[in-house]
């Protein structure tokens, strides 16, 4: 508790309050803006923050993450085209509410639900993360190696309709992670001295997220403007409150555990929350016509999952979503390695971060309720300026790392890869996670074998490692069974509901 109060004191300094507010505003803005998500905006901001104190930067990034989760709901409700995968489900009922003249109530239940879920989720995070870290710190390299393998496998296979494409993304990421001279010999450097230190993950992330997205949008730019539903000040009646509070709590209960597992973040829990609310509702006839429960539950779920994601990120050093992966890169660029040692080595910073999450959450509510009409105006930004701006800031970010035109060439090359990945539906997350975790996988393997003197049996010499390998075997077994039972390329049954939710949100019928 003392640790937490110290953290609160750090987080409440004027400078850090400023960065928390900045992060929340930026996060909401990028959540609202089409084409930009929290992962891309943190990647774009990484180079700029090198000269800011680590705790300020990390506090800002956490604000962006929470804000982005909230901002995505605005687009879903007012535009019926979800900006983030986490708000696909919100669009189903949210846009129907807006069309029925209840946009203000939909935005209000999203904002207040996000606050409730974010606060509960952060309490759970504060209680859980240090304890998980205490457990993990006792693990040796063999267990860590196994956990890394499991994380890579889970991130690759749990989400997405095509496992093959997940593995394609993962191994492309591992390939990028091989580049450099970490082993003492140049691997995949094309005799290019600028590649000796490896490819900067900032350049890869900015290229795949920002350049790839801008090029993909350029190839399919919507020439006719979207219909935006005007909105006033968000507010809710007594009846709306009565119908919202239970979905908020249930959404939180779905969101947090799924966020904490390497199961792809918010997509599964938001959907589970939606079907639960539809089943439990006293107004089932309103579902499909704009039921407030269908907005309240999923919006709470996606904010709670953002808090849950921070448990494995801080306590084990494992990113489970794209945004978490980029925040991990931010830690590394300050010379900090998220994981069990983080709590002992950089305790004050972690506690400041945890305390700032409560501040960010409160700011989110205080700032966003009155500002909703302003956020809706952001949707009208001319698209040529929006995407020209993304290219501009992406180039600036990549160039400012080393002042090398070569980095810009890399940016374009990986941007084209990002374009191809969007064209061929290859997911981005496994690639980014592969780039980050690939080198750590190799490092943990060498450490484990060094300690054992080259004896391979050390890899299954720890109980935790054995448990993890059993889980890996179960996942692989399930994959094999699924592949044998039917055509390997059709989506597994558990993914179909999500696909249906997606098509609903596009107005393709129930």
């Amino acid at each position, binding site marked *: 508790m003392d640790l937490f109060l110290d953290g609160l004191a750090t987080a409440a300094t004027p400078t850090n309050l400023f960065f928390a507010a900045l992060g929340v505003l930026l996060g909401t803005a990028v959540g609202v803006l089409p084409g930009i998500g929290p992962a891309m905006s943190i990647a774009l901001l990484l180079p700029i923050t090198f000269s800011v104190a680590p705790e300020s930067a990390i506090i800002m990034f956490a604000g962006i993450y929470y804000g982005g989760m909230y901002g995505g709901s605005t687009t879903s409700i007012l535009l019926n085209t979800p900006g983030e995968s986490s708000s696909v489900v919100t669009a189903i009922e949210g846009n129907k509410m807006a069309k029925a003249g209840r946009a203000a109530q939909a935005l209000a239940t999203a904002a207040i639900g996000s606050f409730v879920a974010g606060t509960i989720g952060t309490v759970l995070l504060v209680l859980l993360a240090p304890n998980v870290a205490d457990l993990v710190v006792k693990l040796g390299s063999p267990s860590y190696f196994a956990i890394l393998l499991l994380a890579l496998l889970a991130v690759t296979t749990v989400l997405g309709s095509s496992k093959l494409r997940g593995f394609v993304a993962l191994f492309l990421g591992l*390939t990028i992670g091989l580049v450099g001279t970490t082993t003492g010999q140049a691997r995949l450097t094309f005799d290019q001295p600028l590649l000796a230190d490896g490819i900067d993950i900032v350049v890869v992330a900015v290229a795949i997220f920002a350049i790839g997205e801008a090029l993909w949008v350029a190839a399919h730019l919507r020439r006719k403007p979207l219909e935006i539903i005007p909105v006033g000040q968000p507010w809710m009646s007594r009846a709306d409150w009565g119908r919202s509070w239970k979905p908020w709590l249930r959404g939180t209960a779905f969101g947090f555990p799924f966020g904490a597992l390497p199961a792809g973040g918010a*997509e599964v829990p938001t959907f589970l929350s939606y079907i639960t609310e539809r089943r439990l509702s006293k107004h089932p006839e309103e579902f499909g016509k704009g039921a407030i429960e269908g907005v309240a539950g999923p919006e709470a779920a996606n904010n709670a999952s953002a808090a849950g994601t921070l448990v494995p990120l801080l306590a084990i050093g494992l990113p489970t979503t794209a945004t978490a992966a980029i925040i991990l890169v931010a830690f590394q660029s300050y010379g900090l390695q998220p994981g069990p040692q983080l709590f002992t080595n950089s305790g004050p910073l972690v506690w400041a971060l945890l305390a700032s999450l409560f501040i960010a959450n409160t700011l989110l509510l205080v700032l966003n309720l009155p500002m909703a009409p302003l956020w809706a105006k952001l949707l009208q930004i001319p*698209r040529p300026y929006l*995407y020209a701006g993304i290219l501009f800031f992406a*180039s600036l970010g990549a160039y400012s790392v080393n002042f090398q035109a070569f980095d810009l060439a890399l940016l374009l090359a990986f*941007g084209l890869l990002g374009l191809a990945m969007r064209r061929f539906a290859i997911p981005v997350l496994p690639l980014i996670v592969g780039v980050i975790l690939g080198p750590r996988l190799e490092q943990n393997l060498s450490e484990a074998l060094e300690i054992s003197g080259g004896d391979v049996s050390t890899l299954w010499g720890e109980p935790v490692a054995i448990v993890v390998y059993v889980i890996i075997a179960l996942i692989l077994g399930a994959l094999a069974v699924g592949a044998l039972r039917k055509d390997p390329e059709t989506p597994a049954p558990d993914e179909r509901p999500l696909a249906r939710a997606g*098509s609903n949100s596009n107005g393709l019928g129930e």
Partner: protein
Amino acid sequence: MTTAQDTPTTTPSARPPLVDKAQYGMAAFLVVVGAYVLLDAISLDDAFADQTVQPYAFPYVVGAVLVLLGFLLAVATARGDRPEAEEGEDIDLGAGTDWRTVGLLAGVFVLNIALIDLLGWAITGALLFAGAAYVLGSRTPVRDLAIGAALSVGTWYGFYSGLGIPIPAGILDGVL
């Protein structure tokens, strides 16, 4: 972040398999990358005495799997597998692919790469913004250039005095 959304054009089943020929290109790309990783791994020497994992161990695995994935993707393509291309607020998948805009946008970007050492960010940044906006459909070049110049000069000074990061000024050295 890809989503598991169905797109109206790629509804599975019912129709005879339409082969997405471009996906063979992606498969070939994977095989080429994998083969190069393997080739590079062969050229590596044995590890130093204190290294327990050979430097070529990981590349061998990664390269071999990439080649395998390339072949699997080609087989899947031949069997009628089609990707569910990613959607978004500003994306209209119904209208076909506008490769001309993509090419021009990449061209503007290449110009930025070629000129940045000579002219400096303050100039090429402005050109990048105005050029990209023009390619994407903006038809007010003077205003776009003004916005671009304000952005690029503004960020140059912002990095220089605000963050203490001196971006090379290029041709404007001494002017800025």
